[in-house]
């Protein structure tokens, strides 16, 4: 990135790249770009960085080739070639400085945001993850049942990773031949008899490269074991208890003629509904496995029209504003108060106070949030024992809301105190002295002189603090986790911000709803963007842009 090139003012610049006419043209140095000095360190740095770029590109190319992802490879090649061109040419000087950060910005922020936006128009989530074909396969293999004459196997559960978390595989032994196979969601593979130890009864007790789970370990993961389906050509292998498996036949199969799924035993059919991305029976019953489709604006209108969602959403929104305003305003008021108190020529020991006052800002906030959570603990928390009360702080809506704002006040006011101190010191003392000579009371001089000047200096910080607190995920997730929840709505609690609500929709225990969560993200974005745009306009922060 250290490219020794001619200065930005050389005479042969490309058209359209002249400095804007904000200042009168001056006589320029008459050197052309060809005589520009090329320093040795600059050249060495350039060669090193471009070499590194080439190395990274080659390293990244191999997996793309192996996976056959040609568009990705083309993009990689184009980016690398573009970088080489940019830093070897003498033109496009601003781009040399802008491109490094912009590449990261596009890859890890702009692209995810656009992806979010496109997800918001789909029903993407648990049960609607893949294509229709994926759904048909999943329906078939999950409907596998044991029929008379099914092959039976002795079963051991094993994993290649940690017994508590690693991906599970089945080690099945054919009782007739004694052959051992390993099965996962991709299918069955025969194992070399030399690599496995088989006990009498046929169960595998050890296999090279696998850890066989003990009965205790297996039973603690029995749900996963029941759900594991190993597809085979004629159906699938499923477990029956923890020590036996069977190869059953798929009862439900897709019938292209009626575009429906038919149950071979009951004869019931579920017809494909292309708008909902699911197979729906005549009585409205849906199969759990659907596919991803475009649902248009449904996710957005649900927020406004579905009564189960719109009510809690609206109260969350109001609380979200109250939280952001309360946290920002509270920290500002307290911080400014203490800054004013310490801002007196007769005050001694201000440095001592300052060091102690800003300690909360320097403490790791995630850990202090967790510590505060336990200080509010109803049974043996510090707050209750210190004040001799017995309040279930996070159990009631209003005490919980009070508690999280108090915690934010503690975390945030030292910052406001610091910047208010800085701004106060920048206000000339002559101004306040002049008002007192003119007979103004301290309060009048504060209202008329100090406060307006403080607000001018700090309003951009207040706006960004508001935007930060509006999405202050940690403040809620690390303390109340949104609690208390109303009895009829486990998805949206009294202290939930929109961002914690979104997070629960996407990663919570009740099944991921990525599409809906993405729609809420866009709502949050729109709100923050409008609030910031309006307030930035008022503080005229954009002036510099037009310079």
């Amino acid at each position, binding site marked *: 990135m250290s490219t*020794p090139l001619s200065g930005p003012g050389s005479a042969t610049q490309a058209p359209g790249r002249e*400095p804007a006419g904000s200042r009168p043209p001056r006589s320029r140095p008459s050197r052309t770009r060809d005589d520009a000095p090329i320093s040795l360190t600059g050249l060495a740095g350039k060669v090193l960085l471009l070499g590194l770029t080439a190395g990274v590109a080659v390293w990244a190319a191999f997996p793309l080739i192996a996976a056959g992802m040609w568009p990705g490879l083309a993009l990689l090649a184009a980016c690398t070639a573009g970088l080489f061109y940019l830093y070897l040419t003498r033109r496009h000087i601003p781009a040399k*400085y802008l491109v490094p950060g912009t590449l990261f910005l596009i890859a890890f*922020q702009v692209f995810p945001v656009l992806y979010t936006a496109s997800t918001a128009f789909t029903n993407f989530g648990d049960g609607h993850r893949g294509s229709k074909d994926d759904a048909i396969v999943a329906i078939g293999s999950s409907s596998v049942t044991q029929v008379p004459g099914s092959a039976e196997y002795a079963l051991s559960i094993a994993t290649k990773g940690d017994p508590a978390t690693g991906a599970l595989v089945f080690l099945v032994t054919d009782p007739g031949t004694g052959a051992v196979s390993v099965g996962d969601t991709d299918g069955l593979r025969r194992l070399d008899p030399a690599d496995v130890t088989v006990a009498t009864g046929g169960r595998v007790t050890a296999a090279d490269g696998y850890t066989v789970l003990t009965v205790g370990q297996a039973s603690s993961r029995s749900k996963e074991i029941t759900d594991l389906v190993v597809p085979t050509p004629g159906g699938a292998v499923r477990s029956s208890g923890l020590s036996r498996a069977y190869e059953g036949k798929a009862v439900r199969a897709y019938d292209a003629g009626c575009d429906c799924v038919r149950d071979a035993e009951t004869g019931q059919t579920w017809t494909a509904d292309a708008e909902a991305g699911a197979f729906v029976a005549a009585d409205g019953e849906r199969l759990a496995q659907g596919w991803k489709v475009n649902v248009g604006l449904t996710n957005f209108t649900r927020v406004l029209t579905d009564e189960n969602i719109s009510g809690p959403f609206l109260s969350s929104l109001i609380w979200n504003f109250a939280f952001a305003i309360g946290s920002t305003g509270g920290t500002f008021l307290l911080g400014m108060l203490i800054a004013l108190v310490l801002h007196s020529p007769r005050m001694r020991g201000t440095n001592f106070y300052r060091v102690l006052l800003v300690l909360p800002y320097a403490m790791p906030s*995630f*850990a202090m949030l967790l*510590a505060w959570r336990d200080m509010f603990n109803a049974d043996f928390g510090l707050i209750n024992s210190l004040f001799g009360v017995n309040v279930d702080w996070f159990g009631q809506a209003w005490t919980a809301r009070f508690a999280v704002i108090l915690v934010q006040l503690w975390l945030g006011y030292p910052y406001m105190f*610091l910047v208010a101190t800085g701004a106060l010191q920048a206000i000339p003392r002559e101004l306040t002295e002049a008002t007192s000579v003119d007979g103004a009371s301290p309060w009048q001089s504060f209202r008329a002189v100090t406060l307006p000047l403080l607000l001018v200096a*700090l309003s*951009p910080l207040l706006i960004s603090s508001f935007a930060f607190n509006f999405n202050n995920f940690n403040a809620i997730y690390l303390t109340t986790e949104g609690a208390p929840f109303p009895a009829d709505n486990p998805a949206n609690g009294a202290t939930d911000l929109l961002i914690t609500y979104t997070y629960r929709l996407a990663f919570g225990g009740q099944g991921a709803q990525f599409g809906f969560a993405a729609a809420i993200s866009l709502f949050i974005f729109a709100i923050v963007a409008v609030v910031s745009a309006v307030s930035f306009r008022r503080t005229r922060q954009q002036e510099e842009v037009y310079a």
Partner: protein
Amino acid sequence: MRRNRWFAQVGWRHLVAVLGVLFSLFPIVFVLSAALNPLGTLSTTELVPTGGVSLGNFGGLFERTAFGRWFLNSLLIAGVASFASVFLSALAAYAFSRMRFRGRRVGLLSLLLIQMFPQFLAIVAIYLIFGTITDLWPSIGFNTPWGLLLLYLGGALGVNTWLMKGFFDTLPRELDESATMDGASHAQVFFRIMLPLVAPILAVAGLLAFIGTINEFLMANVFLTSTDSKTLAVGMYGLLEGNERNNNFGIFAAGTLLTAIPTVLVFQFLQRYIVSGLTSGAVKG
């Protein structure tokens, strides 16, 4: 009489300041007391340790958890991310502050817009994208510091560029113009003249980015699930999960204090820069 006047002019200020200090300090004292509590549980911890003092929790922290590993992970991620993000945004801010080019205004305005869309709002998309990345390049995927690092760098421009541009705008243009007249290239102007002049402020921006990254929990929690890859925020959150919440409080408090030591030291050292840096950057920005 003199006493009353003293109180009216100065004394009440001390009173308010002392109250403020008490409010600031009591949770920290509580954490300190929990860390020194020999029993190490939440239920036995009081504001002031009464049941004796021991350093057992600090030993337990390193024996029972991978705290040392988490600490190194956090230092690595936060250190590299803050340094690189400050550097990247300084580059961009230099271009925006000193050069005039097509798309400058659009670029600045779109940065302002992007800044309003915090990266973690796209967490669902990021999760899905990094699922693919993990399949292709496991060494920059989930459970690696490098993947998280790349992600943090993606947010770098949006957060810092405007602030930095404000700093650069405060430097008189005559400085780099005269250097250009003397034959310096644009890179030499940037590295030899501009960077040294804004270095203290870059240090502060870096420190703030460092603190922000250490405290980042949402994305790290989605990203890092294996014990050895966790950062302090994710690992210590895990300490207080489930049934162990009461029993682990002592070692958790010990970990909090150890995490705080570097930031508190650097912070006290840089305090005056923070005051002047934040306000000047924000006002000009």
